[in-house]
């Protein structure tokens, strides 16, 4: 990675779920306070705030989330900026925090992500999330997000023989991991039968192939090498941060069975870090739908193109395997408050590399990866982190 070294020196998150008693601002304050306390810095050492949030305007009637965060954390007059890239908003906020420190502009910044999704009806939530695609040419014609990923799933099944059972196994694994994570929305294991017998939302995707609507927030504190080495006992080093774009609408892509933005971001991230996909010990992947985790496994190089279904079937992504995927429970089991997800992935990897992922700890994890997608693949962000103590 170019520029100065950047470290995660603190991490925290709110519990994920349907929080009828918590507002947008309460969620982000909860997560940020935990991250600041974890980092052992004083609030006055912070120099800037970057917040990821996709659609607070439609979900909660609230814009200007940057100012809201600074104000309610008592951080005025710090510069505080909201970043939006649909479901990848959190990761894009993360990148901006990283670049601010790598460039030498700041030494300590806070990065947060938040979404409050359950105050509106399911139809309104579906319409709001539809804005992550092409409003005029997809949503206008009745495309929902499950529908767009269903169109990809159907091609992946045709081209590689992937089955609905294999997709179901992704959900089963992620729920099993979520059951070991006290912050997760779903604390219960499910079976393949649960998934296969759930109703179709957009065939071939069923209710249990889909991530839920979630309220939640996550935050991390980033610092330069000088600061991190001075105050942090377990610094986690950022060794890559990459982002790529593709056509907003699914129809305009050459392939439906992979995400080109993920492939390009992955290649750049591994080049930045000078490592290969086989060097990764633990990974948080963007499983907004089960098919998305399968495609991401292939696009990130964890298996050959078309082999992800078989790999999951063989249990090769469970905790205890060579490459445990979505130990937090992923978007599917832990929940998917869209603007928070990218930051939550960093929080989970930081805990794994610090050896603090109680109940779901990956043994001797040294290198972790996060992969966050906006929309149906128009934005993809990859981060690589390394234990540095």
């Amino acid at each position, binding site marked *: 990675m170019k520029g100065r070294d950047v470290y995660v020196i603190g991490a925290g998150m709110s519990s994920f779920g349907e929080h009828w008693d918590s507002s947008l601002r309460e969620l982000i304050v909860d997560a940020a306070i935990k991250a600041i306390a974890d980092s052992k810095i004083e609030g006055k050492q912070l120099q800037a705030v970057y917040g990821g949030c996709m659609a607070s305007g439609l979900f909660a009637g609230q814009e200007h989330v940057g100012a809201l965060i600074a104000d309610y954390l008592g951080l005025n007059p710090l510069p505080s900026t909201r970043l939006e890239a649909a479901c990848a908003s959190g990761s894009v906020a993360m990148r901006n925090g990283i670049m601010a420190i790598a460039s030498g502009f700041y030494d300590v910044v806070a990065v947060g992500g938040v979404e409050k999704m359950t105050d509106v009806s399911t139809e309104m939530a579906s319409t709001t999330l539809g804005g992550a695609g092409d409003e005029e*040419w997809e949503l206008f014609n009745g495309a929902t997000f499950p529908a767009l990923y269903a169109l990809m799933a159907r091609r992946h099944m045709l081209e590689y023989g992937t089955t609905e059972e294999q997709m179901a196994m992704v959900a089963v694994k992620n729920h099993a991991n979520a059951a070991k994570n006290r912050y997760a929305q779903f604390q219960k294991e499910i079976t393949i039968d649960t998934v296969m017998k759930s109703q179709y939302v957009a065939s071939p995707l069923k209710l249990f192939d889909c991530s839920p609507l979630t309220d939640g927030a996550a935050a991390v504190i980033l610092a330069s090498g000088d600061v991190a080495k001075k105050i942090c006992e377990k610094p986690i080093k950022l060794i890559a941060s990459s982002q790529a774009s593709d056509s907003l609408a699914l129809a305009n892509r050459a392939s439906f069975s992979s995400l080109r933005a993920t492939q390009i971001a992955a290649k750049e991230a591994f080049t930045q870090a000078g490592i290969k996909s086989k060097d990764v010990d633990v990974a948080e992947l963007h499983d907004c739908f089960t098919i998305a985790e399968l495609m991401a496994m292939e696009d990130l190089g964890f298996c050959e193109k078309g082999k992800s279904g078989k790999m999951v079937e063989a249990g090769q992504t469970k905790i205890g395997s060579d490459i445990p995927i979505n130990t937090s429970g992923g978007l599917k089991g832990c929940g998917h408050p869209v603007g928070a997800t990218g930051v939550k992935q960093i929080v989970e990897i930081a805990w794994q590399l610090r050896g603090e992922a109680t109940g779901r700890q990956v043994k001797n994890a040294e290198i972790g990866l996060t992969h966050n997608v906006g929309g149906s693949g128009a934005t993809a962000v990859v981060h690589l982190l390394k234990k540095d103590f």
Partner: protein
Amino acid sequence: MTEGIARIWRNQRDRYNLIGTHCEECKNDFFPQRKICPVCRRKGKLKEKQMPTTGKIYSFTLVTGGPVGFDYETPYYLAIVELDNKVKILTQIVDSDDDKVKIGQPVKAMFRRIQTHGEEGLIAYGYKFKVV
């Protein structure tokens, strides 16, 4: 999403007639219209072009939970159709037997009501496809 009259009117001509863009430089067709060729950028020479009204189903899904404005349509088939010029387009498939909605099936465009907006009941029209 609830759209005002101007927002519906603005795209009306392209939606009614499947008008996209052709680049005389790289010979690619694009739908919807582009002001800048994504392949040639500034060197592109773009002009309007009507897309073919026939093609084949490239992928499809049966949507059982629709967004706001589609209450009366659910469930409906949504598909990616590959038009005869290889341009892909997202559309609903209607007036077709369930067992005929599958990948590779030939389809043709029709002019239809797409959705009803808000309390004033503004109706937006556009294209849907049917199996031939």
